[in-house]
């Protein structure tokens, strides 16, 4: 009996140290490219994953000497055309298309990269259908007035699911003096009645809002009009600056949507418990990253002070 008891105690004591050792970093290739309908083929960036001990430097991690191409696939999956890439020659790991061919809507593309170590990385994207801008092309509106800015787009399409959109705002005059009250308080703690000197403010704090985007939004979240077009209202909280802003409506593919979804969970924005960090779903064979596509419309808008 005593040896059994001793073994049991030993087992308990040793298992009490059940702190699974954090796993070691294994370097993997990473790809990044975003095709936009109607535009030239996007640059492809090849890098590698890094450990968390130091500062992440994308250029230092760039993969040089890779052979990169994007293949347009026919409905039966056979290659329909190939867009070859070359190293940019300026930025490590950046590859540029050799031609100025344009991305077509609603087709499948496969990215292939033969890496210097002999491995191959590949990923596919299904490009969303065309996105038509119906109205308006330019607009002015007074901040927080009842006259909210609206944009109407002819719906894009995507096989097997409803369209998913991401709205982006890019201020064209991103000066601290132009900050709306909410963001002035959020970034600098300055209330509406306080006097302040714009020149004294740390402009690096503006980096987060120089291009700000919504999370993916399903088409069903927007008002669908009888002609099947979609009316999108710009929420006031997304407006960080007075003055001219660029508004983009992006219909995104599954790969970009997946990155948004899983990264949001990694950053704590899901129902998972804090500290539970799931990996981003694997959409790249032989590596990680995003090979995505979208259809996009852009309008410019001026936000007037009340």
């Amino acid at each position: 009996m005593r040896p059994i008891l001793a073994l049991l105690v030993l087992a308990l004591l040793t298992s009490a140290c059940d702190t699974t050792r954090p796993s070691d970093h294994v370097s993997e290739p990473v790809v990044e490219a975003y095709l936009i309908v109607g535009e030239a083929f996007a640059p492809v960036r090849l890098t590698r994953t890094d450990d968390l001990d130091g500062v992440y430097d994308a250029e230092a991690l760039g993969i040089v000497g890779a052979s990169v191409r994007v293949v347009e696939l026919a409905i039966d999956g056979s290659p329909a055309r190939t867009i070859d890439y070359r190293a940019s020659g300026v930025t490590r790991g950046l590859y540029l298309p050799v031609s100025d061919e344009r991305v077509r809507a609603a087709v499948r593309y496969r990215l292939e990269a033969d890496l210097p170590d002999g491995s191959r990385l590949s990923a596919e994207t299904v490009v969303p259908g065309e996105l038509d801008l119906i109205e308006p092309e330019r607009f002015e509106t007074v901040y927080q007035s009842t006259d909210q800015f609206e944009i109407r787009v002819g719906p894009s399409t995507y096989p097997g699911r409803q369209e998913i959109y991401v709205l982006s705002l890019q201020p064209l005059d991103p000066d601290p003096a132009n900050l709306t009250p909410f963001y002035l308080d959020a970034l600098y703690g300055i209330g509406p009645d306080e006097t302040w000197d714009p020149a004294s403010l740390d402009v690096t704090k503006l980096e987060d809002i120089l291009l700000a985007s919504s999370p993916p939004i399903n088409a069903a979240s927007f008002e669908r009009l009888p002609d099947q077009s979609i009316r999108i209202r710009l929420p006031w909280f997304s407006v960080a600056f007075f003055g001219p802003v660029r508004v983009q409506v992006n219909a995104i593919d599954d790969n970009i949507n997946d990155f948004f979804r899983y990264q949001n969970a990694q950053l704590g924005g899901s129902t998972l418990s804090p500290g539970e960090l799931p990996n981003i779903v694997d959409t790249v064979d032989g590596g990680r990253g995003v090979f995505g596509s979208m259809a996009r419309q852009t309008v410019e808008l001026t936000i007037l002070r009340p």
Partner: protein
Amino acid sequence: MSRTAAILFLALVITGSASARQSASVSGFVRDAETRETLILANVLVQGTSSGAATNTSGYYVIDGLSAGTYRILASYLGYRSAVFDVTVAAGEARRLDIELEPEGLTTGEVVVEADRESVEERQRLGVARLTTAAIRQLPTVLEPDVFRSLQLLPGVKAASDFSSGLYVRGGSPDQTLILLDRTTVYNPSHLFGFFSTFNPDAIKDVRLFKGGFPAEYGGRIGSVVDVYNKDGNRRETRGRLSVGLLSSRAFLEGPYSRGSWMVAVRRSTLEPLFAGLRSADVEGIPNAFYFYDVNAKVNIDLGRGDKVSFSGYAGQDMLDASFLEGLDIGLTYGNRTFSADWTHLFSERLFSELTVTASRYASDADFSIARTEVGRNNSVYDLTMKGDLEYVHGEGHTVKGGFWVGMFTMRLANVFDARENFASRIHAPYGSAFVQQSWKASERWNLGGGLRLSWFGEGNHVRLEPRASAEYVTRQGVRLQAAYGRYAQYLTLISSEVFSGLDTWLTTGRGVEPAYGDQFVVGVKSFLPGSIGFEWEAYYRTMRDLFQLDPFLQDPAGVDYDRLFHFGYGRAYGTELTLTRSFGRATGFVGYTLGATRRRFDAINEGAYYPPKYDRLHDLTAVVNYDLSSKWRMTTAFTYATGQAYTEPASQYRLVDFPFTAEEQPALVSPFNAARLPDYHRLDIGFTNRGRFFGFADYELQLQVINAYARRNVWFYFFDFDPDEAAGLVKRETVPQIPVPVPNIAFSLSF
């Protein structure tokens, strides 16, 4: 498996019927002698025989199968002096014996040890733990005595953190525990956004936790059951209690009237003066308003010797109104309302019935205004039910119980964005279940139980059969060897956050969403060690199949088919629990140890492989000791040690440099999911209670407590900052602690 269990159940019923014969019986209610409050699970034994019974949830017992003769009846209940009665019965006589037991005082020197051993045995049911409100009030606690935080100290029950009152029982998540208050389901039993539970200990008579292997009369969850009963109210005299604490104050009043008794308990937070002081000191982040309250009330009407009607209600609400920044306003209210009307009727001494109508409402309403963009989420649950039970004592040691539970479950959920409703869902589902179960004392050594539950849920039209079985063998030395099996089905799932429970939302099965179900296997050994130390050992294995949870990667539910809102998975949990309990003497308390593991598997997480959820802990040790320093002073300590929780330690990172939707690089982590462990958790809480007379008109109780006495800085979770001030491109791990410093608590109560 189901077919086998059904055959077993039928066999038990048939053999039980064969054993029935004409015999004498003794039956009645067991009550508190001071208040005449009925006592649940009190033990009534016929000395010198193996005959005996425990009172049911109405305090009623029946001992059948007695031959003509004179018997010595022993009644006992933990915390009460045992009582002995000599009863003579004639052949076929149904003798009514209502019993009243005297409660013990603070000191326990005159206890009849043998009798109390027997009362403890009643607690030694497989998978069942019971808490008295006195114990709940004695335990050191953060700001407020709390039922669920007390339950968290029991073996097999874990807490997510110091800030959460959620119950993680035997590897299950909180939504796998059915929570009943006077037979009414409570859907979000929390105050202060999960910090502690809604149950006011002043109003509670009895709390039982069925950790697993629970009988067929309970259903609807695949894990466990917390069965809470409000006090009936004092039937002898009007009594009251006032308590003042740091967080809230409580008032309790109970008394008799011509037809029965009544009780009302009120609790409300008293933080307004603190907030006002902080605001006047220009402390930022103080809410404009925050409060919570709850009210428990119950009225009992005695209609006759065998009829009693009671009406019980609960109402509680939390409200927060806060403004931050220029144009960020938050309004949040959530709360529960429950009502039950209960009629108990004795058809005869052997046939007991209970009919209950219940209503439960949970609603949360969150409204945010961000720079005049209105965002909201409104959720409500309405659950109207009727339950009926019949309990028949069929012969010596043979009890059959059957019942039904029908209801209508209505859930509404609406999301509002920019003042426009962009998601709305309404589920209006009838449901029902019926059960039959029996317990049978097959011989002097064997106790057998079996049951069958048939459940149906209208949304999706799902039907499930849930067999249950149990067996107990008592050795000559009094050691109880126990085993139980049960299958359980669950039609609901909870969207919740470990951090914040104010937005808890329930969803149900539906088209394409099958009910979750699981099997539980439990074995146990119960005995007494020298010195009246109760010994309990249990081991369990349970499965969780067809788990359905809100897809954690769902960004926008608008326009998504119902079955696509969820991700589906599996789980399993296994472990062993050891408990040593001492209930008598100057030093009382318990030591509990759990060696356990729980795993989950969902396709989109951990590449579809099993992983430990955050609340998985291999070791869990709790020691609670009460020591009477003198007739007026008592010291209570609670120590907890647990293996660190699972978390994800990133191994690699990459960044999307050209991401077209942001100006900054977008970080991504590559990590083995939940493969690392936080540092081990341990904490010591100490409390002192002083009791005495207060200027001759009331009894007072002063509590001085310190939580986390030696300032252990337990880790709640790690947060990874991808953009620290130190350098762009660096990832910095920040520690978010649990309660990091000793927290004092003082409370003062007057009972009159």
